[in-house]
């Protein structure tokens, strides 16, 4: 572009080069000066929080049916089979009414790659990716989530993944 190598040029070219170089440097400083008066874009985390989109995928959680206050999961093992890193472990249990439910449901969040495939394959909408990104722990074992840690109530609009064709607009959009 403009700024060029100065070797083997006439003195006049050198002066032109000098002018261009000086102008470019001044322009660069003008940009930085302009930024002195711009607002920072930093989010100061504990005080201000980053609001991820409601359908942000952080980890798969077990959905509780609000009407019955029970997990929607029927322990059909679809997610366990589909999970690429194989970190979901379910122990199926059977209630008195012959309905199956997950006796244990473990997700090793230390290895979870947050792909959301478990949510996609779930035939009962019993898993949801939740945008809850505060998952720090003091011990690696805390990264293994069990049924109690995973259970959430999903209220209001659902996450937009279309389980079945055309379903996602029915829940309405959180705007």
């Amino acid at each position: 572009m403009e700024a060029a190598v100065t070797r083997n040029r006439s003195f006049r070219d050198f002066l032109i080069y000098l002018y261009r170089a000086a102008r470019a440097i001044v322009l660069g400083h003008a940009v930085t000066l302009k930024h002195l008066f711009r607002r920072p874009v930093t989010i100061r985390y504990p005080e201000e929080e980053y609001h991820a989109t409601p359908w942000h995928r952080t980890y798969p959680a077990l959905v509780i049916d609000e009407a019955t206050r029970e997990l929607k999961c029927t322990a059909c093992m679809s997610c366990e089979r589909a999970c690429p890193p194989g970190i979901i472990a379910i122990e199926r249990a059977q209630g008195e009414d012959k309905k199956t439910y997950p006796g244990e449901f473990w997700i090793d969040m230390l290895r979870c790659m947050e792909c959301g495939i478990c949510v996609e394959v779930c035939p009962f909408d019993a898993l949801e990716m939740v945008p809850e990104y505060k998952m720090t722990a003091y011990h690696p074992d805390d990264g293994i989530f069990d049924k109690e840690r995973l259970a959430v109530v999903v209220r209001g609009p659902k996450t937009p993944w279309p389980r079945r064709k055309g379903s996602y607009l029915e829940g309405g959009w959180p705007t």
Partner: protein
Amino acid sequence: MVEGDKAQPAMNDGTRQVLEAIRRDHPDWQPEVTRWGEVQLRVGREDLQAVARALRDDHGFNYCPSETVVDYVKEGRFELDVRLFNLDTGAKLVLKSDLPRDDATCPTLAGVWATCKWHEREIWDMFGVRFEGHPDLRRVFLSESFQGYPLRKDFVDARKPRPRLVRQR
């Protein structure tokens, strides 16, 4: 997966010209056309270098995006798969060669396309195919102390398995 008239429209002009040129100049090469409109040549490994050189010099295949090996363990062979491309005409060509599994050696293509130097290092690293005449055949990803060639289908990791969550698939 090879041949078929319905695949012909996918072939671009450069490839068509190359196909004609090869049929004209080298009647013994037996080019085929794949479903995706590429010319496919299957050559013996002893002819590999000569064919490659001819392709580069006479047919303008100056660009080699990919060279790899597939382990067909049941058939007892490795299949060398070299993808070639002509940057000027857009012709596409696949060079295939069968390497017996019990004698996994192959003449190097590093002298034809310089990029094969690293491709072949990767193949040596992962499949243990020794490329004869390669200038710098070292493992590229794994350390030299690694035992075995991990992408071979019969590779068994002798190390103690790392513990993980309950079920192994």
